[in-house]
């Protein structure tokens, strides 16, 4: 059943992380994503792992729900890993671990692949902590609020946020409608599962056209409803939701910033004093 698929991946809860201001969470997530690229050694990766697991624990998210997000990038993971394993040349003087004709595999390549693999996995896990603990609506507000400074540059921040919000509110009924049209056409003998590529593509016309027509009908009614409720664009508009920073945001923000300051410092140290072995490997 289509309609049972909850959109977004919000995992309801009332943990410390859930209660943090979505803006702070968004900024911290961005910091996390950047920070991951400054992790150079497996030792530091171990720290990051503990840190990430701690956050997941504090957010009271089942580890499985966070890991599930990796599914979406499996192809990317395999591909980048293979590329790194096969195409990384060893450091000077390094003997290949294994060689066959022109293909050579070095330990350096394996390490490189492992690091990139970890980075991508943590990147996705980190961002899914954000989406699992923040409703799409909150995220929309956070984006709008953070983009506000762009308004002076004529960037249509409000319209952008409104489109996001309308999209979110229309997704469930759009899914329902798609579901209904597919069933109706199946009942009329439509076949979406057999035949060649062109035949299959053609089979979608009887779904797409009613959806499109329905979309215009919806848009018209929505426009009327919005106009009736005095919509006039962003001018003089106010907002019901106030986002307030609480102690949680300061504590959470401090911890994450402190951690990554450490990561950045280690990165700097590693570059300066290359002889600190554990920072490198």
């Amino acid at each position: 059943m289509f309609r049972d698929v909850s959109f977004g991946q919000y995992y309801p809860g009332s943990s410390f992380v859930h209660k943090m201001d979505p803006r702070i969470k968004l900024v911290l997530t961005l910091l996390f994503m950047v920070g991951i690229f400054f992790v150079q050694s497996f030792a530091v990766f171990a720290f990051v792992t503990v840190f990430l697991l701690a956050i997941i624990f504090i957010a009271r998210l089942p580890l499985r729900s966070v890991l599930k997000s990796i599914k979406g990038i499996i192809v990317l993971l395999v591909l980048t890993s293979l590329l790194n394993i096969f195409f990384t040349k060893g450091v000077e003087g390094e003997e290949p671990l294994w060689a066959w004709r022109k293909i050579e595999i070095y330990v350096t390549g394996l390490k490189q692949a492992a690091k990139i693999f970890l980075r991508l996995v943590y990147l996705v896990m980190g961002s899914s902590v954000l989406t699992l603990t923040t409703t799409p609506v909150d995220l929309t507000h956070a984006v709008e609020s953070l983009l506000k400074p762009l308004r002076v540059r004529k960037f249509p921040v409000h319209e952008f946020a409104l489109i996001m919000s309308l999209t979110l509110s229309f997704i469930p009924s759009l899914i329902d409608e798609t579901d209904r049209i597919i069933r109706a056409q199946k009942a009329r003998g439509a076949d979406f599962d057999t035949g060649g590529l062109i035949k299959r593509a053609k089979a979608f016309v009887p779904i797409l056209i009613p959806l499109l027509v329905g979309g215009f009908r919806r848009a018209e009614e929505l426009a009327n409803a919005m106009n009736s409720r005095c919509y006039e664009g962003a001018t003089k508009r106010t907002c019901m939701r106030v986002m307030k920073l609480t102690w949680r945001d300061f504590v959470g923000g401090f911890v994450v910033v402190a951690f990554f300051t450490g990561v950045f410092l280690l990165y700097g140290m590693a570059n300066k004093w290359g002889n600190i072995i554990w920072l490198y490997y």
Partner: protein
Amino acid sequence: MSKSEKVTYSSVTVPENAAIFAQNLDFTYNPKSPFAKRALKDVTVTVNKGEFVAIVGHTGSGKTTFVQHLNALIRVQKGYLNVLGQDISIKKPDLKALRQKIGMVFQYPEYQLFADTVLADVCFGLKNFGVDKDKREQMAKDALELVGLEFDKIKEKSPFDLSGGEKRRVALAGVLAMKPQILVMDEPTAGLDPRGKTEILTLVKKLNRENGVTVIMVSHDMNEVYENADRVLVFGDGAIVYDRTPRELFKLEKEIEAMNLEVPSMAAFCNELERRGFVIDENCKTVDEVFAAVMALKEASDV
């Protein structure tokens, strides 16, 4: 499904006159997940050929799930289902053969129109079911005329340029063109004005009475159910709670109201008369029929 259950059903004999024969149908959405929801609970029912059966019940009562089993839009999870002699609880039933025999009209069917002409839209099903090209036009013509539209006037028009009532009839013609033996309809009159409603119901009744089409109609309008159906299935919480003739069903005023359904006006009127010792014939259901029956009672008492 376990093997033992299959064995049990292989010995079931389907009555010859059965259009639909369901034994212990059970269905759960998202089984084995935290969102699991049991939508059908051990439903056993037989619908005879030529019957006009209404299905009523609230959202979530299981009526939609049941109806979608009938043409295998939802596959049998547990239990046995036979439609017009075809066992559709098996793993790979012949869907085309099935869906050609059982026409399904969804809520607001006009929202599934897609072709650039009325003719092409009505022919969509025929084409899918492999009807010869030269036969299609004649069959589409029959169907369009059946729903009361003038073929030559309408065939080249875009379905999107028609009025709401016309669109609905074109959509209906698209299902009827396949000459189904069973017609399943989900609220066929929703959103129509009184005239449009009467038109659709008259048509459906004609198909049932004259062409012998078995009709299954899901409806929220108890007056409509009362006046048209031979038999009513009341769904509640995934099971069939009542299976009676409309007259017998709506005698249960308290039970009907407790289920948040309405008692049709003419049923309420006749019930009151019966409570006070006057008998109104079971077949008098419309305002005119009930009025005539009351006049007959009056004449009898005047004598």
